């Protein structure tokens, strides 16, 4: 396989892998997140959050993939980039690493969102308990 063919194949395989990783993480978190959203917030907010979750994991994964540039380390032209196979493999490793890092940050972000949902629902419960006590 020539270096150019390797570059094309690995680039699209990497893009598919990043989308796949984002989807796997979404499927792993979907049910518990749906449970929290249903139990702790209003119907509209719950529905909106559940629809946002897949995009909130898939976009960061793709963003991580595209954020890696092949140009750099003295390589600016296409010919210089495809000259060395080890450089291409190194860039593939960098892409996967970046995808994992961006998904990681997204997971932390959704952790904060769940924390806010739980806090919001607790405030709602406390207010309704106070109203009942007043009545």
């Amino acid at each position, binding site marked *: 396989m020539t270096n150019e063919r390797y570059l094309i194949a690995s680039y699209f395989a990497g893009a598919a892998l990043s989308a796949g990783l984002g989807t796997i*993480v979404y499927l*792993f*978190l979907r*049910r*518990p*997140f*749906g*449970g*929290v959203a*249903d*139990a*702790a917030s209003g119907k509209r907010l719950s529905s909106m959050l559940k629809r946002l979750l897949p995009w909130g994991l898939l976009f960061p994964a793709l963003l991580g993939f595209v954020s890696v540039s092949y140009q750099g380390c003295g390589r600016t032209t296409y010919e210089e980039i495809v000259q060395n196979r*080890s450089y291409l*493999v*190194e860039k593939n*490793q*960098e892409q*996967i*690493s*970046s995808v*994992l*890092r961006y*998904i*990681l940050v997204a*997971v*932390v972000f*959704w*952790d*904060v969102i*769940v*924390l806010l949902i*739980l*806090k919001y629902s*607790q405030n709602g419960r*406390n207010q309704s308990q106070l109203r009942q006590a007043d009545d």
Partner: protein
Amino acid sequence: MSLQLSAFLTLLVLSLAVPIILFLLLRASLTDLLRHTLKVQAGITFYLRSFLLILFLSALSAAIGTSFYLKPDSRFMEYVWKGAEGVSSTLEKTLWFVTVYLVLITILVATLKIKDDK
């Protein structure tokens, strides 16, 4: 198997072992803490799963990002040093993200549990 590949696989195995050991060590106490804090069962599952993800993603992202492409005439110890660099990066990244997770869990406990205790 080339020296590059064996060094990379060794680093990958080590970086998978770290999150597995950490998760097994902390799982029971974290579940207990979350059970005392959250009323929603799905919340407990969500935070446990996200902890597992944080451990694995941080370790793997550092390990995969380590390049073992050295000069063709590189000696055995040069690969070992590169591997050690990778382990260092893996542990550092895992440590930082576990710290972020712990801060988050502390905020969770502080904001939700105190009101329940009242």
